[in-house]
C-alpha cells in the first residue's frame, strides 16, 4: 500500500513567495547579460536579421517572465495580507535602507 506523500515544507506558500522574490531580483541581471550577449558574436558576417530576432525575442521573453513573476508575487502578497500565510512571518523589509 503506497504511503501518502507528506509535503516537505509546512510553509509552502512562504517558500514559494521567497523564491519568486529571488527570481524578481535576479531577472534584471539576467536580462542585462542577455541584452549584451550579441556584443560577443563575431563580426565576420552581416547578421542584422539574427541580431533583430535575438534582441526582440529576448525583450519579449523578459517581459513574459516578468509578467509571470509579478503576477505570482502579487498573488503571494495578497494572500499574505489576507493572513493566510502568517505561519513563518514575512522577512524584514529592507526598503528604507536599501536605496
Amino acid at each position, binding site marked *: 500500500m503506497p504511503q501518502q506523500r507528506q509535503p516537505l515544507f509546512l510553509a509552502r506558500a512562504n517558500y514559494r513567495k521567497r523564491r519568486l522574490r529571488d527570481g524578481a531580483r535576479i531577472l*534584471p541581471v539576467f536580462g542585462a547579460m542577455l541584452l*549584451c550577449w*550579441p556584443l560577443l*558574436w563575431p563580426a565576420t558576417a552581416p547578421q542584422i536579421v539574427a541580431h*533583430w530576432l535575438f534582441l526582440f525575442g529576448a525583450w519579449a521573453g*523578459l*517581459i513574459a517572465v516578468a509578467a509571470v513573476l*509579478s503576477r505570482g508575487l502579487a498573488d503571494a502578497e495578497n494572500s499574505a495580507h489576507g493572513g493566510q500565510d502568517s505561519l513563518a512571518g514575512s522577512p524584514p523589509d529592507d526598503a528604507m535602507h536599501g536605496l
Partner: protein
Amino acid sequence: MPFNILVLACILYVALLFLLAAWAEGKSARGGAGILRSPFIYPLSLSIYCTAWTFYGAVGYAARSGLEFLTIYLGPTLVFVGWWWVLRKLVRIGRAQRVTSIADLISSRFGKSNLLGVLVTLIAVAAATPYIALQLQSVTQSFAGVRQPTPRRAWALRGTDGAAVWVAGGLALFTILFGTRNLASNEQHHGIVTAIAVEAVVKLVALLAVGVFVCLGAWRAGQRLCAATDCMPRPIGDVATCSPARWTGLILVSAAAILTLPRMFQVLVVENSDERIWPRQAGRFRPI
C-alpha cells in the same frame, strides 16, 4: 493638407485633452481616485518617456544607426523588469518622506537640505530648458512639414516661431489649470495623468503608422530608386557596428534617465497612488 484643417484638428485635439483632464480631475475630486488604479491608465502614462521629439528622434536614430536606437528602450525595460529592486523601494521611500520631486528625494536623503534641493532644482531646470525647446521645435517642424508650400498667407509670413509661442502658451495654460492650481500635499494630478494616457495611444498609433509606411511604402520606393539610379542602399547598422562600450553605456544611461528625468520621476513615483500597482505593470512597458 490645407493649413486651416491642420489648425482645426490641433485645436480639437487639444480641446479633447483639456476636457478629459477636467473630467478626470472632477472625478478624483468627488472621491473617484480609482481611475488611476485602472490597469491601463497608469502604464499608458509612463509613455511620457517618449516625448513629441521621439517621433523624429527615435525614427531618425533608427534610420541613422540601425539597432543602436533600441538601447534607449532596453535600459527602461530592464528598470521595469527589475521593479522589485528599485522602483518598489523608490515609491515606498517617496511615500514615507512625502517626496514631490527628484530634488526633494535627493535632499531628503541628506536631512531635507534646502541648499541641496535648490541645487538639484537648478540643475534640472538648466537641463530641461533646451529639452523643452527641442519639443517645441519638433511641433513647429511638424507644422512646417504638413503645411502646403504654395499658399503663403498669414502662416508663412510669421514663420514657425509663431506656432512655438502658441504651443508654449497652451502648455503653460494646461500646466496651470491641471497642475499648479491644485495645491495637494501629495502632488498627484489625476487630470494630467489621464491626458497623458490618452496621448500615449495617439503617439503609439502615430509611430506604428510610421513603421507601416516605412515597411510598405518608403522601403519599396527606396529599392526602386536604388535600382533606377544603380546605387547601393546603405546597410542598416547592427550590434556589431556599435562599440560594446557605447552599447552598454547607452543602456545604462537610458536606464538612469527613466528614473531621474523630472517628468519620469513625477509619473513613476509621485503620481503612483498604490505601490502594489507595480506587480501589475512590470510586464507592460513597451518600447514604442
